[in-house]
């Protein structure tokens, strides 16, 4: 789960990482008020969970409170990469002498956390890594030992930080490490970490991503979830314990298992169609879960056909078929449906479905072919 910049900065501040004075505003007049309190120049920053806010015009400098109001009004009406801006952060403007990068993430190859620093901050670090890899310093951390100060010093040396800043930099790095471990983050990043003209280090922008698997351990963080920033179908799916991701195609997918769900999307594409979603219904495709999944898929008006692909391992296909029939009776979908049941008791399951107006398929390839043809308005088994 990604946190907003203002949420990340609250955590920074709580853990002793200096951040600019600032407050969150829901309206332009609130922004004006905050700007007046802060006095002088402020930065108005759109709070959306996507990168590239600056380029999209979502970050603007205001010279006085009335300009803060005008700019906030404009930013609060914006959409950035499809996400409406609901809040702006009004921060005291900093006098920047140098922009650095400091972040902690997981290295999946080394199987340990890595702290990354760069003398080039304020830009996409992935791009820096590609264009000027020599400007990226990485220090792997033993997860059993934790970060030691010498490792932060190694980073400071690596990015040519002036010696008088080492102490402050080590403390910031240690505090960021404490955030990373205590909050179960998978990413904790300060970008840019700014050296100001009066020679202090300050976190001008920040990103924290919390490990979804650890959210049950951190109810306070789970509460920070911004439901406005999410697709409504994805929120509803989470309630039912379904894993759903909305895409832009016309074929709804209902599959048990994440890998099989991805493979099903891929084969739809291979057959010339476009999937409308990823949906993993998980183990045991009961009527309740199938019904919930169908409801969620059908909320997407682009869906012109649905492909149900269930592998019965320990779940028996005849049980799944009954679940599907019950769910169909309840939902009465108006789009053609192709069902493929494989594995345990698949024949019995298919027999049960034979009386319905749903089309069945034996192989995955055949199922995808049928779904693609139905989505294009082709012949299908639905007499209604």
């Amino acid at each position, binding site marked *: 789960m990604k946190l907003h910049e203002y949420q990340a900065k609250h955590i920074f501040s709580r853990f002793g990482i200096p951040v600019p004075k600032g407050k969150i505003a829901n309206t332009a007049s609130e922004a004006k008020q905050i700007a007046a309190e802060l006095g002088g120049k402020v930065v108005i920053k759109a709070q959306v969970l996507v990168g590239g806010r600056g380029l999209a015009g979502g970050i603007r400098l205001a010279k006085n409170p009335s300009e803060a109001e005008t700019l906030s009004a404009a930013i609060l009406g914006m959409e950035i990469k499809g996400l409406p801006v609901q809040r702006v952060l009004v921060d005291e403007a900093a006098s920047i002498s140098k922009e650095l990068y400091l972040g902690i993430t*997981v290295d*999946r*190859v080394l*199987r*340990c*956390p890595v702290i990354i620093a760069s003398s080039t901050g304020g830009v996409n670090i*992935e791009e820096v890594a*590609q264009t000027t890899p020599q400007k990226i310093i990485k220090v792997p951390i*033993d*997860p*059993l030992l934790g970060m030691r100060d010498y490792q932060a010093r190694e980073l400071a040396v690596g990015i040519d930080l002036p010696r008088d800043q080492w102490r402050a930099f080590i403390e910031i790095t240690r505090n960021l490490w404490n955030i990373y*471990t205590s909050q*179960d983050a*998978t990413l904790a990043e300060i970008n840019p970490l700014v050296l100001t003209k009066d020679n202090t280090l300050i976190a001008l922008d920040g990103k924290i991503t919390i*490990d*979804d*698997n*650890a959210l*049950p*351990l951190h109810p306070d963080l789970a509460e920070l979830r911004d439901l406005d920033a999410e697709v409504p179908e994805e929120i509803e799916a989470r309630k039912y314990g379904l*894993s759903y*991701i909305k*895409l832009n195609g016309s074929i709804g997918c209902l*599959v*048990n*298992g*994440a*890998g*099989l*769900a*991805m*493979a099903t*999307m*891929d*084969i739809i*594409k*291979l057959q010339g169609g476009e*999937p409308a979603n*990823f949906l*993993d219904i998980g183990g045991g495709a009961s009527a309740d879960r199938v019904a919930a999944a169908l409801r969620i898929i059908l909320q997407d008006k682009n869906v012109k056909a649905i492909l149900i692909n269930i*592998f019965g*391992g*320990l779940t028996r296909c005849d049980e799944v078929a009954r679940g599907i029939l019950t769910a169909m009776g309840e939902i009465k979908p108006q789009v053609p449906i192709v069902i493929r049941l*494989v*594995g*345990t008791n698949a024949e019995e399951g298919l027999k049960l479905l034979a009386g319905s107006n749903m089309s069945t398929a034996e*192989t*995955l*390839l055949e199922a995808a072919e049928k779904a693609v043809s139905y989505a294009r308005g082709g012949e299908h088994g639905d007499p209604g």
Partner: protein
Amino acid sequence: MAILVNQDTRLIVQGITGHEGLFHAGQMLAYGTNILAGVSPGKGGSWEMQEKIPVFDSVKLAVEATGANTSVIFVPARAAPDAIYEAAEAGIGLVVCITEGIPVLEMLRVSAYLQNRKTRLIGPNSPGIISPGIAKVGIIPGHITTRGPIGIISRSGTLTYEVLNALKRSVIGVSTCVGIGGDPIIGNSFIDLLPLYEEDPDTDKIVLIGEIGGSDEERASEYITNNMTKPVVAFIAGRISPPGKRMGHAGAIIEGSSGSAASKIQTLENAGVKVARHPEEVVDLIA
């Protein structure tokens, strides 16, 4: 003799008194797996499975009493890291963790802890291991596969079953199938298991089932180029998955420029691996 799980497997089930643990212990026993004991703290001294399997309070006690060499973990995510440490400490050689939902940071510690120990960890978030016709450890259904010369290593669950089933339909059997788990940090990866298959007289060819996220497939490609003489066929799920989204599995995410299916398929093909376009095509490529 089959790799990892075979006639010598002496299994204990950690979390045997839970719903999942009990059900799958029954399935494993019915398949012919040699289950010697269960572990459930606080329930030591009781018996499960029609009084056939004794329950112990700790792995150590279970190992002392039975000489178990393998463990399978069915405990909830919160207790699972502890269960892994406990099994390793008690000298278990092979630990298979079925549990899904362990935080990454916990797994980083587990992984570091195991680095200098002789315990091999499969999973977490793994469906387990099956050597068809001999024994199974975990939840892979027994009846969807038969014994034969194909080795399988997979990051997935039902997608693996799909391939096992497709192979069986074409009367192709499997030597050992290992589900390595769908999490970003797992015990053994492809490169840890490929050498076992290369040495295994029961295995002629290997199927590798990967997916987006991380670079385990890229590292496997390098290993295959340098070390494998047996043919390898692959399938990679997630060709059209959008970047930045976790596709069900915690480890299935394209981060920045890394972890895309295209990159994995390209490097595998460069290593001489035939990559199937869809799961059923694996059968045509392996035959």
